[in-house]
């Protein structure tokens, strides 16, 4: 019996994208800071949202599971954005600047880097958009694979 190994979470060095944001010149409010603001604001967060926000905060600090971060962000966005538009705008912009996707159109093929745009509300739609962005005009996606990554902190 053969076992299939899960795909490595770390992208190939050539595919890593340096993160434009460095602590010294980052003028955006960082995602964890935005979440802390939401958690501090009295009455801002309802029951289960508190747990989900804490989970998202933990995932963001670990920087190991970008897909998990995006999935939780989308879930929270659907329930909270209407009440906290600015906070979710900041989170969205931060994630767009700190995450990217690599797209492989077929097994063994080269990886293409695609930006992550969060103008969609679930991970599958975001994945589909990344794939679409990576395709050249007229090119078809066969057994494609899209993986999300955190940009490298400089």
């Amino acid at each position, binding site marked *: 019996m053969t076992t299939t190994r899960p795909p490595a979470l770390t992208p190939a060095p050539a595919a890593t994208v340096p993160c434009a944001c460095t602590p010294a*010149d980052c*003028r*955006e409010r960082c995602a964890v800071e935005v979440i802390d603001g939401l958690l501090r604001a009295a009455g801002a967060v309802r029951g289960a949202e508190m747990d989900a926000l804490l989970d998202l905060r933990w995932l963001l600090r670990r920087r190991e599971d970008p897909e998990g971060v995006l999935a939780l962000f989308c879930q929270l966005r659907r329930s909270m954005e209407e009440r906290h*538009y*600015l906070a979710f*705008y*900041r989170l969205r*912009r931060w994630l767009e600047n700190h995450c990217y996707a690599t797209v492989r159109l077929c097994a063994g093929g080269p990886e293409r880097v695609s930006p992550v745009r969060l103008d969609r509300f679930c991970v599958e739609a975001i994945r589909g958009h990344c794939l679409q962005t990576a395709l050249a005009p007229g090119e078809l996606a066969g057994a494609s694979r899209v993986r999300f990554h955190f940009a490298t902190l400089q």
Partner: protein
Amino acid sequence: MKTATTTSAAKARTDTRLVDALNLVLADSYALMALTHLAHWNIEGPDFFELHKAFEQQYRELFEAIDEIAERVRALDAFAVGGLNKLARLAGMEEFSSPMPQKDYVAGLIVAHEKVMDDASRARHLAGEVDDLETQDLMIRRITFHQKTVWMLKSCLK
């Protein structure tokens, strides 16, 4: 006999940190004016008329402020920064990728106003260090404008 004002002006003139800080506020304000103008043109949605008019008032105010900040730099015997590329690079603000949802324009402008406020606060502080009350007064007026605008924009998102 030297007056307190001339002494403080002389101190301010020799402080390149203050001139750099003022030029940064100038670049920020220019970039913010361009973003506000873009939002004025491209915004769509149920609040179009109100936001279209509000953005027009804001970019007009910014245009006048830019002139005042640049003239303050000149009054300190320094030169004002200029040129679209240089101003954009110095300000480092994210540009809008129109079309965007109406609320994204508002949220994006809030973030941009906050950046100007941070930089103007720094300039106000540096002006205080060299007793340049005129620059301090100008920065206080700028911060007051941005605080008021942020309050109004935030109210649109509720």
